């Protein structure tokens, strides 16, 4: 029992270290719970780097409302239960005024009730549509939904006159959610999903699934792969190994330069819907996003020593939307900030131009997605 009290005491001491007194010039505390380690670290790591980077920058420029920003960031390891615990900690002990983060849909959904109850604005960085549908008063998100990714791909398929499609998805949250949405909206685009294969986390060879797909009676005219991280690179390589000979579509989950490096020559000709950030240099100078995405890309790559990804970009968008809302609200009150976030119009972020409303807590439409093809080892904007 002494042991237990010792540990309880230790935890309490650790928490006290965070709980600064709340006098007038105290910093504004912004909370974040991200999957910095674990299966979603591929997404969570650039998000955490981005938040740290930009909070420092904002503080160097004088902070917000004359006060410094302070980031309280916890790593949930991708576990929803742990995310929920950290969410409670942010609200109860750290007394943050708003939260940016929640790397996966699962962790975000686990945290939402905590922030809703505390009336603290929460900007999720996950893709799942259920985060903002139905609309919850204090919950927002910055990434495009996976439903939009499906629609963008199906739209492109329709233009190319391809209707018989094979779907291969990872069984993780991202893949499962996008698979679900694609199956749901395929009919609206006249697309027929004739093969529906899946693979587990950490699987290293998808040739059996692709072989099955190739042997579907009637064949497939195109293949869509819904997943992020290692899986899509392996699928792309297996796809080339088997010489499938039909177009391959990846999702916005591969929107990071490392995908091209990992998939190598096999990535040639792969198409994907992604945010403008990927093709920053190719945007015409009059594109409203050009300046923002170039600035983010240059700063991230020069300080972090790794290629930029759209996932870090979502964190940038979330933080900036929040900071601008705090400025407009001229307050750190949760409800006022929420109202200000909801009033966001024409915010130019890395993911697109954001127009929020009381009924739309994401504020992006299909135009935010660009169709991109990989040519000569680099991204090529094709529409």
């Amino acid at each position: 029992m002494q042991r237990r009290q010792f540990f309880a005491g230790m935890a309490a001491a650790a928490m006290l270290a965070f709980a600064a007194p709340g006098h007038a010039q105290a910093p504004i505390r912004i909370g974040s719970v991200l999957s910095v380690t674990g299966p979603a670290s591929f997404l969570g790591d650039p998000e955490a780097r981005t938040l740290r980077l930009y909070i420092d920058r904002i503080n160097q420029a004088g902070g917000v409302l004359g006060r410094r920003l302070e980031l309280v960031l916890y790593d949930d390891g991708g576990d929803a239960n742990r995310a929920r615990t950290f969410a409670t900690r942010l609200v109860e002990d750290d007394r943050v005024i708003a939260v940016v983060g929640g790397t996966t849909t699962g962790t975000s959904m686990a945290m939402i009730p905590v922030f809703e109850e505390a009336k603290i604005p929460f900007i999720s960085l996950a893709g799942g549509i259920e985060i903002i549908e139905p609309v919850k008063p204090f919950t927002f998100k910055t990434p495009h939904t996976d439903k939009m990714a499906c629609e963008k791909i199906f739209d492109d398929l329709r233009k190319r006159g391809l209707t018989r499609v094979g779907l291969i998805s990872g069984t993780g949250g991202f893949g499962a959610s996008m698979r679900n949405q694609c199956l749901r909206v395929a009919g609206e685009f006249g697309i027929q999903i004739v093969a529906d294969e899946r693979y587990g986390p950490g699987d290293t060879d998808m040739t059996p699934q692709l072989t099955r797909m190739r042997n579907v009676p009637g064949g497939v005219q195109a293949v869509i792969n819904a997943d992020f991280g290692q899986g899509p690179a392996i699928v792309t390589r297996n796809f080339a190994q088997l010489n499938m000979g039909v177009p391959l579509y990846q999702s916005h989950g591969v929107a990071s330069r490392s995908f091209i490096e990992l998939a190598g020559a096999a990535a040639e000709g792969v198409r994907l819907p992604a945010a403008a950030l990927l093709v920053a240099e190719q945007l015409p100078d009059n594109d409203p996003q050009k300046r923002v995405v170039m600035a983010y890309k240059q700063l991230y790559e020069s300080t972090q020593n790794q290629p930029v990804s759209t996932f870090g970009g979502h964190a940038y968008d979330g933080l900036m939307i929040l900071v601008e809302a705090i400025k407009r609200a001229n307050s750190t009150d949760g409800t006022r900030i929420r109202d200000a976030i909801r009033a966001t119009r024409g915010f130019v972020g890395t993911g697109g131009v954001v127009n929020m409303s009381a009924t739309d807590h994401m504020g992006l439409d299909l135009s935010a997605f660009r169709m991109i093809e990989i040519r000569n080892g680099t991204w090529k904007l094709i529409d």
Partner: protein
Amino acid sequence: MDQLLQFVFSGLTVGAVYALVALGFTLIYNASDVINFAQGEFVMLGGMVTVFAYAAGVPLPLAALLAVAVAVATGLALHRFAIEPARGANAVTLIIITIGASILIRGIAQIVFDKQFHRFPSFSGEDPIAVLGASILPQSLWVLGGAAIIVALLWLFMEKTLLGKAVRATAANRLAARLVGIDTALVLALAFGVSGAIGALAGILVTPITLTSVTVGTLLALKGFAAAMLGGIGNPVGAVAGGLALGLLEALAAGFISSTYKDAVAFVVIIAVLFVLPQGLFGKRAVERV
């Protein structure tokens, strides 16, 4: 037919890696009764060290050698600083120590390296080779050949060298081995070192196909453990057979039954085999030491 052959290629390549991990389990188990759940981290180290050394400009063969050295050192350190101080503790306690060690190794690796996925070039290019309508990557041949050579070398070492005989004697009966003058502490250290090397080699061979990151070890440890048990723990032949069988099972299940439940099919078969052969395919019939 070509479909079946494609599944077999896939299963053998994946299975060869499971086999090498299972072999690492077996070596350490024989010398110490420890199920080393940090075995997957050796595979991770093999891949990650090679990736980072290669990226820093070290030629690939040298980078690979360095990775093996790091994994061997990690194996020896694991034995010296975690297993040896707990000598005499029961088997479950030692297993928990190896789980702690795997968390520790991964924790350090994600600070030293990063959290991204990586690979380095295949040894003999990327052009697939067509065989009877199926296709196989040259790197898969490297994996299969490499695994075969490692198994052969290990067999030669065990059967033909004095040190190898000492290892086998220790595995058979530790007390008797000590009585005839075998330095069992040395044998133990050797087992951890060699397991580290085998794991690292597996990681180096397979990274061009499977990619690597600091997190790949956990799942490989799980699959390698299952493979070792399927083959019968303590038997090197069983480890290799178990690994290949598990890989084939997964590929065939994914190809013919359901890609969603291929792991389920694999485990159901393992459990079914254990019902019939409670000591695994090649397990010793001896009573287990508890």
